[in-house]
């Protein structure tokens, strides 16, 4: 369970570029929740993710993951329990190293001086074959040779090879072509469901925000303005969501990448 308690973050405080990105945001994420997040440009969706994974420390408030206060922990310590995928498929893997080496680092089996074992290789092959992209036969190829979709699928594998307590997906299919995006999205949904991973996903696709997961939150100017789940959410349509936004934020939802339907 993730508890976010009144976190704030202001970038460039005291300057002309001051930006209050998070304004006392609170959110409780239950175990095995799969929450989709939508919101306008600059609503603070990515900032929220970066606060959770520790790219920066918040100015105030607390973040508690599974009973442990992680507010002041450095990012690499949090990464043990938090997996993250970015929009840019290049960010999650090391291009000059092989698929196998990337997976070995993500898996982190054994001590510092241990080498990749045959049991590891077998595990990696099994995991990669789930992707159905033929990567299991290319384990010794450098990751730099893969396509964006393959790299994002590999990053998904790396982020979930040890079940994380929390998985953050920041528009992770937005940079892929539609067919690949759909495939990676389906893989994500399968893995999250299979492993019962607690997951937050930012998306610009209003329809998939409603189709995927069990809960949807809407963000605007550094806060959660709408949080819906259960029967109420099942009845929602994309026009309902737009109407909700107008009601709560007092203006139309504008997002330069927003897709209203499929």
């Amino acid at each position, binding site marked *: 369970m993730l508890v976010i308690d009144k976190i704030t973050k202001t970038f460039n405080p005291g300057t002309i570029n001051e930006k209050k990105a998070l304004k006392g945001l609170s959110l409780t994420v239950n175990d095995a929740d799969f929450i989709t997040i939508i919101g306008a440009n600059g609503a603070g969706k990515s900032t929220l993710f970066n606060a959770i994974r520790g790219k920066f420390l918040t100015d105030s408030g607390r973040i508690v993951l599974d009973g442990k206060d992680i507010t002041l922990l450095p990012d*690499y310590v949090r990464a*043990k329990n938090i997996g993250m995928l970015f929009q840019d498929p290049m960010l999650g893997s090391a291009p000059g190293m092989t698929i196998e080496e990337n997976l070995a680092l993500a898996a982190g089996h054994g001590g510092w001086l241990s080498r990749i074992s045959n049991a590891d290789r077998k595990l990696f092959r099994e995991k990669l074959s789930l992707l159905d992209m033929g990567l299991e036969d290319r384990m010794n190829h450098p990751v730099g040779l893969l396509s964006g979709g393959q790299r994002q699928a590999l990053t998904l594998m790396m982020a979930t090879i040890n079940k994380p307590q929390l998985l953050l997906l920041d528009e992770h299919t937005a940079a892929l072509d539609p067919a690949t995006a759909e495939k990676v999205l389906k893989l994500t949904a399968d893995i999250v469901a299979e492993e019962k991973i607690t997951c937050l996903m930012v998306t610009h696709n209003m329809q998939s925000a409603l189709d995927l997961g069990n809960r949807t939150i809407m963000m605007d100017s550094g806060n959660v303005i709408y949080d819906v789940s259960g029967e109420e959410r099942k009845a929602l349509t994309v026009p309902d969501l737009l109407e909700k936004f107008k009601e709560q934020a007092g203006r139309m939802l504008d997002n330069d990448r927003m897709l209203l339907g499929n």
Partner: protein
Amino acid sequence: MDMSSIISLLQTSLELGLVSSLTVLALFLSYTMLNVCDLSTDGCFTLGAAVGAVVALSGHPFLSIPAAMAAGMLSGLITGVLQTKMGIDSLLSGIIVNTALYSINIAVMGNSSLLNLNKTETIFTMLKSAFAGTAFAASYKTVIVLIAVAVVVVFLTLFLGTRLGLAIRATGNNPDMVRSSSINPVFTTLVGLCVANAFTALSGCMLGQLQKSVNIDIGTGMVTMALASLLIGRAFMGKGPVSVRAVGAVVGAIIFRIVYAIALRFNMPAFMLKLVSSIIVIIAISGPYIKTQIPVIKRRMSAGKGRVE
């Protein structure tokens, strides 16, 4: 030029190439793998030579090797801490440590800028008897250096395949990915620089004992020469597994020395060595960039000719 002088020229090149290849292997780790251009290399090389010479002079030639390597590690640790923990740019921290090492090296050498090892037992004089009567009696120095290089190549190949080694490679490749694998890139950078500088110091230690003298300038220009060798090696054996690329670094160092020796034969003055190494580095690094610019330049030139009025 007769046969025997060619052989002695090749043997000297081989010896010096092998000794400097230890520094090239250090840069293979720090520059190629960790993506840190360690400008403290010159000072660290001299530090290794100075510490090695002082320990040998005190009557412990074998102890000189671990002593020099430990000194190198300490120097690498300081360079690493400056750039990972104290907010100093990585190039600048190398330069700062390099400057500081000048004073330290003179202090290590007992307020002198020259140490003479002519009458001192060195690892080479100690091991000479071990090779007496074997086929290597005449080339025992080359064999001793070759063994050291082989040990370092094998160590690096094994080391870079461990989880720590993979993390070091990933730090140079994509530090964000290292953090997401819950590894602290500060730690991997420190380890990488410590190991690399241990090899640089070993290289200096062996050169000092091979030449039987250590001068405060012994390391000047080493970083450029080692980079030149590294890039020559990359041109020949730059692809494939880590082991092949490490051997490529050694081959590059030997080729560099042979080319240099040949140039000397053609009456190139010895002081030109550093200019030549700088030019090699410039060509090797800027070459690929300029190659990508050539089509653009060609298009601009042809566009100029066919201008429509």
